[in-house]
């Protein structure tokens, strides 16, 4: 079982599918604690990713990660653009040395944390990326881990991003970026032949 350009593409297409299906839901999550655009941002981003991968089939994993990153960086528009973009850019760099998922995701997570300055507990996508990257490194990621991480953001006080303006009042709402990140991990474990 290993990551290839083909199953990476399959994974990303599955993620795109989920984002498109849940576009309105993601924007709804972003409404009480943000500006209500996360679904639209991500849908625009994954569309650009799919177009890029179709227009120019990447020769290597590194190219694939880079194309994904650049499309997200250019097209998302919101905070999630540079964050997801940095994640895939870090995976591109790391993929020159290894295809180990644990290492790739650890690099991605470190990139997100550096880019946005968020730590675990700040009610951001980091609350999904960090624990699930750890699980991947340990070779045991299941849907219930994903649900737990995503749902865990509900009780947190936002410390970064737009939701942080609401302080304590952000409690009781799921973080939209955590939810979309959850879809990325679900798509990963659902794609045959990667894990």
């Amino acid at each position, binding site marked *: 079982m290993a990551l290839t350009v083909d199953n990476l593409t399959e994974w990303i297409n599955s993620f795109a599918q989920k984002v498109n299906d849940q576009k309105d839901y993601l924007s709804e999550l972003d409404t*009480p604690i*943000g*500006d*209500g*655009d996360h679904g639209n941002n991500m849908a625009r981003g994954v569309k650009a990713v799919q177009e890029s991968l179709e227009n120019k089939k990447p020769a290597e994993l590194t190219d694939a990660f880079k194309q994904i990153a650049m499309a997200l960086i250019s097209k998302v528009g919101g905070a999630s653009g540079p964050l997801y973009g940095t994640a895939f850019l870090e995976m591109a760099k790391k993929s020159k040395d290894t295809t180990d998922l644990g290492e790739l995701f650890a690099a991605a997570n470190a990139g997100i944390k550096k880019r946005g300055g968020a730590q675990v507990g700040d009610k951001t996508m980091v609350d999904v990326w960090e624990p699930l990257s750890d699980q991947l490194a340990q070779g045991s990621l299941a849907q219930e881990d994903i649900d737990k991480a995503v749902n865990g953001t509900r009780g947190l006080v936002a410390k970064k991003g*737009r939701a942080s*303006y*609401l*302080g304590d*009042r952000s409690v009781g709402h799921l973080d939209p970026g955590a939810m979309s990140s959850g879809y990325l991990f679900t798509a990963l474990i659902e794609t045959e032949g990667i894990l």
Partner: protein
Amino acid sequence: MTLGITIVSHVPEIAEGLPKLLKQVAADVPLTFAGGTDDGDIGTSMEKISQAFTDNSADEILAFYDLGSAKMNLEMAQEMSDKTIHLYDTALIESAYTAASLLQADVPLNDIEEQLKPLKIK
């Protein structure tokens, strides 16, 4: 009693543009703006500010401005207005954004003012 926001800038484009950022997080907060002189040049206009107070559907208004001379026209308009106008010497874009987010979440004015305090720079 409803709370609204009025934006005052020396530049018409800034006064028009900032509400677009605020509307994203505060669809239900009454927002009006006054930008530039009567002739649309860089500067502020007491009449335009008064009009922005009148046009705002709220009866209590949080007002934000860019540079000091805007404040003088704001204060003249405040003195002439029947509404309660709160004037903040805070970073224009950042504090208007903060106030808009919090007003949309029905946060009481006292708590909003507490959160605006660190943004006081004038």
